[in-house]
C-alpha cells in the first residue's frame, strides 16, 4: 500500500504497459512507432520503480527514474537523428525496408 493505493495495482498497470510496449516493438513496422513503444516500455519500468520505491519508503526508485528520463532524452535525440539520416537516404522509415545491413 502506498497511501491507499495497493502496490499490486501499480505493478499490474506497469506490467500491462510493458507488455503493450513489447507488442508494439515486435509487431509494428513504422520505426517511429517502434521507438514510441520502447519509450512506453521505459515508462512502464519507471512506474514499477516508483511504485516499489514508494512501497519501500525510499527515494531510490525516483532517483533511478530520474536517470532513466535523462537517458531517454539522450536516446531520443540520437535515435531521431538516425531516423533523419536514414530517411534522407531511403525516403522511408519502414523497418522492413531498411535492411541493408545483412549478408
Amino acid at each position: 500500500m502506498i497511501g491507499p493505493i495497493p502496490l499490486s495495482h501499480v505493478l499490474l498497470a506497469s506490467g500491462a504497459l510493458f507488455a503493450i510496449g513489447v507488442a508494439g516493438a515486435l509487431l509494428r513496422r513504422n520505426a517511429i512507432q517502434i521507438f514510441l513503444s520502447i519509450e512506453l516500455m521505459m515508462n512502464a519500468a519507471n512506474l514499477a520503480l516508483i511504485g516499489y520505491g514508494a512501497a519501500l519508503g525510499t527515494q531510490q526508485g525516483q532517483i533511478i527514474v530520474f536517470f532513466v528520463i535523462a537517458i531517454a532524452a539522450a536516446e531520443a535525440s540520437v535515435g531521431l537523428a538516425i531516423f533523419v539520416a536514414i530517411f534522407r537516404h531511403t525516403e522511408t522509415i519502414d523497418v522492413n525496408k531498411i535492411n541493408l545491413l545483412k549478408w
Partner: protein
Amino acid sequence: MTTPPLWLIPAIPLVGFALNGLLGTKLGKSFVSAVGVGAAGLTTVVAYARLIPFVGGNHQPVVEPVASWIALAGLSIDISFRLDPLSALMLSFVTFVAFLIHVYSIGYMHHEATNAGYARFFAYLNLFLFAMLTLVLAESFLLMFVGWEGVGLCSYLLIGYYFEADYAAAAGRKAFVVNRIGDFGFLLGMFGLFAAFGSLNYSEVFWKAAQDPARFAPALGAICLCLFVGAMGKSAQVPLYVWLPDAMAGPTPVSALIHAATMVTAGVYMVARCNVLFRLAPEVMVFVAAIGCFTALFAGIIAVAQNDLKKVLAYSTISQLGYMFLACGVGAFGVGMFHVMTHACFKACLFLGAGSVMHAMSGDLDVRHMGGLRGKLRITYATFLVATLAIAGIPPLAGFFSKDAILSAAFDAPGAGKVLWAVGLATAGLTAFYMFRVVSLTFFGRFRGTAEQAHHIHESPSSMTVPLIVLAFLSIGVGFVGLPPVFGARADLIGPFLAPIFAPIAGHEGAREALPHATEWLLMAVSVAVAASGLMLAWQWYVKQEGRPAERLAAAMPGVYALVAEKFRVDEDYDFLFVRPFNRLSHFLWKVVDVLIIDGILNASAFLVELSGDFLRFVQTGNVRNYALTFFLGLIALLLFVAGAM
C-alpha cells in the same frame, strides 16, 4: 691532488661516445676528432694518475663501489670497480695503446667521405674503450660481462663499419655469432658460479674458493670449462677462431686496437683473473694448455701461406693468443699477462704499419703486389721491422722476453710440458719465418704492383707515423720489465708485481722449483736460434731467391699447399657441419613446422570460423524486427529461468 675515482676512467669515453654519437654528424670532423681523441687522452691521463701511485705504493687491491645495481633477496650486485695489479697492468696498456690508435685514426680515417661516417667511427671507438675499461676494471663477473658484451658489440659494429660492402657486413655477423657461442659458455659459467658460491663478486668468489678448495673443486671443472669456452670465443682459439681473420674487414685501426691489442686479450685476462678457479681444476688447465698450444701452431701454419698482409697478422694474432693460453694452461698466468702486454705493443705497431702500407698502396693489401717499399716508406719500414723482430723473439726486443718466459714455463711444466715446449718452439720458428716473409715481400725486392700504385706511394702523415714510432720504441723497451731470472733475482719486475694475484692456494700446490740457470740459458739460446733460422730462411727464400723456393715447394706438394693456403678449409667444414645443417633445420622449421603445422592450425581455425560465418550470416537478416524478436525470445527464456528460481 685528490686521486680521481675509478669510475671516471670508463665514464670519460662514454661521454665522448654520447657527444660524438649525438652531435658528431652536425658539428664536423674537427669537433669529432677533438672529442674522440680528447676522451681517449683524458681517460689515459686519469688512468695513469691512478696507476702511478698504485704501482709506486703498496699494491693492495682497491675496490670502489659506485652504486647498487641489483638488490634482491640472496643476490646483491653492486656496480663497483677494482684496481689491483692485474687490472692495473691491463689498464696501463689498454688506455695508452687506445690513445695512440685514436691519434692514428685521425690520419687514417681522414679520407672518410661523410661527417656521419667519421663521427660514427670515433663514437664506436670511444664506446669500445668504455666497454673495454669496464671489462678490465669490473669487480664482479656480471659487470665484466657487461663490458664483455660491450666490446663484442663494438667489435661487431666496427667490423661492419663499411656495411655497404657485403663482405664487411657478413664478417661482422660472423664475429657476432661466433662470439655468442663463447658468450653462452661465459653465461653458463656465471650461472654455475652463482649456484656454487652465491655471489658474483671476485673477492667473495675467489676468497671462498681459496678457503675451501675441497668443497668447490668438483663443481669448478665444469664452471671453468664454461668460462674457458667464453675465453675461446673472445680470444679466437680453436675452434672458435674463425671470426678473427674475417674481422680484418674493419678499418685497420680497429684491427690494431680491438682485434690485436685489447679485446682479444680479454679472454686471457679473464682466465688470469679466475686463476684461483682454474688452478683448482687441473684437468681444465691441461685443456687450456692444449688448446693454446694447438692454436698457436695451427694458426702459425696458416699464416705462412697467406698473401693478404692483414690476414697474416690476424693469424699471427691467433697464434700469439695461443701462446698466452699455453702460458696460462701451464700455470704461468703472470707470464701470459706479460705476453699480453708485449704483444699489444708490437702487434698494434704491426697492424698500424700494415695500415700505413695499405694507405700507400691505395687500399691494396696483397703482398704479391708490393715489394721494395722500404725506400718510399722509411718510417713505416723501420717501425714494422722493429715490431717484426720483436714478435719473432730476437733479443733484446720485447717479444723475446715474454716468449722465452712462456717457453721456459712450458718446459718446466710437469706431464706433457716438453711436448708443449717443442710445439711452442716450432711455432716460434714459424712466426719468425712468416713474419719475415711478409717483411721481405713488402719492403724488399722490386715493386710488383701497378704503375698507378707506384706513382701514388707516399709516406703517411705524422698523425699516423708518430704512433708507429712510439709503439716501435715500446716494442723495444717494454720487455725489460720482465727480465728472466737468470739476470738476477730482482731483474723481473712484473712477476713479483703480479704475484699477489697468483698467490698459491694454501695446501693445494707447492711452489715450483725454478729451472737451473744453465737450462734456462740453453732454452734461450735454442729459441733465439730457431727464431734466427726462421728469419734467415725467409730472407734466403724471399729476398735472395725472390720466392722461387717457396714456389717450388708449393709445386712439389700441391695438396698440402692448397690445404694450408685455404686455411685448412675450416670455414668450409664449419659451413658443412654446422651452418648448412642449421640452415636446413631452419628451412624445415619454416616450411614444415611453421608454414604447414602452425600456420595450418591457424588457417584451419580461421577457415572453420569463416565456414561457420558463411552459415551464420544468414541469421543477420538486416530486419530490426527479427533481431527484436530474437531478443525478446531470449528475454522470455531468462524470465522463465528466473521465475523457476523464484
